[in-house]
């Protein structure tokens, strides 16, 4: 009787892939040598969270090399910015990281406001904080649901979706749409929030902590989940920094770096909250970081909601803000200003700024170059998902292909943000 081949090694070459469609023999699986197989994962694989394609070199089930192939959602937003006025750029920012549109609005607005030298009144800043933190919660809930689903926990997905719906309802209330809100604009907000807003935020604050406890029982305390996620996709703090990873993916490796603390913007220094960090930099630590961040975000929303100042939400600077409706009826200058702002927009002075905020995925930066006209000369988006994904080949090396799915889930990429 012949001896069995060693585990994970093919003693005989595999049969060449059979052609089901003539001429497409080598599309999916290519045999490299006796031990290695090249496998195509995505772009339509459900665990790749959109249109990520991974080219994997496998030895049995072990990933020897992982090469992400991106760009399927590349839309050329950076080119489009150059032919639009500053306010017209806001809807484009919505569509980049489509799970956290308000954070993208905020980052662009802050950069443009710094060019203009405009300050938003306290109420506008607090409402921005509330909306961005609610967005962070919604984004983390979606991540929680989908990455748990990747690992086989179907129930958690349905629960997370149910809670996220409440935040999308708030988006709809304040801006009219659920996802691409364009609510935060250069100089302030679209408008002040309607009266129903307060009750809805209170509802979120009252129900979410209990729901989170429920999730933690379902997933965090689940020994199967813990075994599944511990010690896989490990990345050390130094490597994470070297790969430019930010957000919970960096904090999971134990680096307490959060732009809301390090470089507070939009009144974040008024609020008391903690930055959760991990210890080992594995999938489980990144999971814990995000789950605790939801609770911290609820703390911020609670403080901002209870100390919400009164007053205007938009800057009084008439170079940027539209004149109020009643003024247009009586003042010729206001009418002209309204017309000029609608048709031409405003003209920031020439120069360049880099402004970054902490989006749910990490450091989201806008580098705007102005030439003094009403359109940006160049906008570079420093997308957190792009840099975080660049660290995936490093984390994936030597993992099992089933664990790779968990690792992709744990860096929480949005392909719209990667490809822009």
């Amino acid at each position: 009787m012949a001896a069995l081949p060693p585990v994970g090694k093919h003693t005989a070459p595999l049969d060449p892939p059979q052609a089901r469609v003539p001429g497409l023999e080598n599309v999916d699986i290519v045999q490299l040598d006796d031990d290695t197989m090249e496998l195509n994962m995505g772009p339509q694989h459900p665990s790749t969270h959109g249109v990520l394609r991974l080219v994997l070199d496998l030895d049995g089930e072990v990933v020897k090399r992982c090469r992400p192939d991106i760009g399927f959602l590349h839309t050329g937003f950076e080119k489009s910015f150059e032919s639009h006025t500053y306010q017209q750029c806001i809807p484009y920012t919505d569509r980049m990281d489509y799970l956290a549109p308000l954070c993208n609005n905020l980052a662009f607005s802050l950069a443009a406001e710094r060019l203009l030298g405009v300050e938003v009144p306290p109420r506008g800043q607090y409402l921005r904080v509330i909306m961005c933190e609610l967005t962070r919660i919604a984004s983390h809930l979606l991540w929680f649901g989908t990455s748990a689903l990747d690992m086989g926990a179907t129930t958690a997905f349905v629960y997370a979706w149910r809670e996220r719906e409440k935040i999308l309802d708030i988006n709809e209330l304040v801006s009219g749409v659920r996802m691409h809100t364009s609510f935060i604009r250069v100089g302030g907000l679209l408008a002040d929030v309607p009266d129903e807003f307060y009750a809805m935020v209170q509802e979120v604050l009252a129900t979410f902590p209990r729901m989170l406890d429920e999730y933690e029982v379902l997933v965090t305390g689940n020994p199967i989940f813990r075994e599944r996620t511990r010690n896989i996709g490990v990345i050390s703090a130094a490597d994470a920094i070297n790969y430019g990873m930010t957000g919970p993916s960096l904090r999971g490796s134990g680096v307490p770096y959060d732009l809301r603390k390090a470089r507070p913007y939009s009144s974040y220094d008024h609020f008391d909250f903690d930055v959760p960090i991990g210890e080992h930099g594995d999938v489980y630590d990144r999971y814990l970081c995000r789950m605790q961040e939801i609770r911290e975000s609820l703390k911020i929303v609670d403080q901002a909601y209870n100390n919400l100042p009164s007053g205007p939400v938009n800057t009084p600077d008439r170079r940027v803000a539209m004149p109020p409706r009643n003024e247009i009826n009586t003042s010729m200058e206001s009418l002209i200003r309204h017309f000029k702002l609608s048709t031409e927009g405003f003209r920031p002075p020439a120069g360049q700024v880099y402004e970054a905020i902490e989006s749910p995925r990490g450091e989201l930066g806008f580098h705007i170059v102005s030439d003094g006209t009403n359109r940006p000369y160049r906008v570079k988006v420093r997308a957190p998902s792009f840099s975080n994904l660049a660290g995936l080949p490093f984390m994936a090396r030597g993992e099992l292909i089933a664990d790779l799915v968990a690792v992709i889930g744990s860096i929480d990429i949005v392909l719209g943000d990667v490809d822009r």
Partner: protein
Amino acid sequence: MSEGTATEAVGAQGERALTLLTSELPGAVLKSESAFGEVTIYVDADRLVEIMTLLREHRDAAYAMALHVTAVDYPDREPAIPRFDVVYQLRSLMHNDTCRIVVQVTEENPTVPSLETLWATLDWHERETYDLFGINFEGHHDLQRILLPTDWQGHPLRKDYVSFGEPVAFTHNLEWALPAAERPRDMPGGGR
């Protein structure tokens, strides 16, 4: 300049890098600009590796994280100034500082040394800049397109790349009816 933004509260961003470069590497800084609370440092491509290594390794700078590299295209600049600005944005976690380093390269030879061995993240960012601007990062191990398909023609974020539509010829601009390759260089979409 705005009063409320936080970046001003921690001092002009990038001054730390400028001070260090002027004292440690005399002549490395070609010029510097300070505006909107940020310092922009212009350096020469030949000394880029030396400068960036210092900024990364020196404990007074410790720019351990590279945020991005990109380019800005100025086709209408006067001939003495090179066409492209290659922009590096670095972040120091230790000192909570950001600095911007700019290298100017010409249209004929848009080449800068690759820094992917200094910061692993720049591997992808350099590929993106090559893809969209045609900047050549010398020494990059795998400099190919990343966002666009490999058979794509041209570099879309250059200012002379027409983003959409076909030029339409009227009586006053009949040269627009020429095939794209024969159009004058200074026309939109010309010279490609």
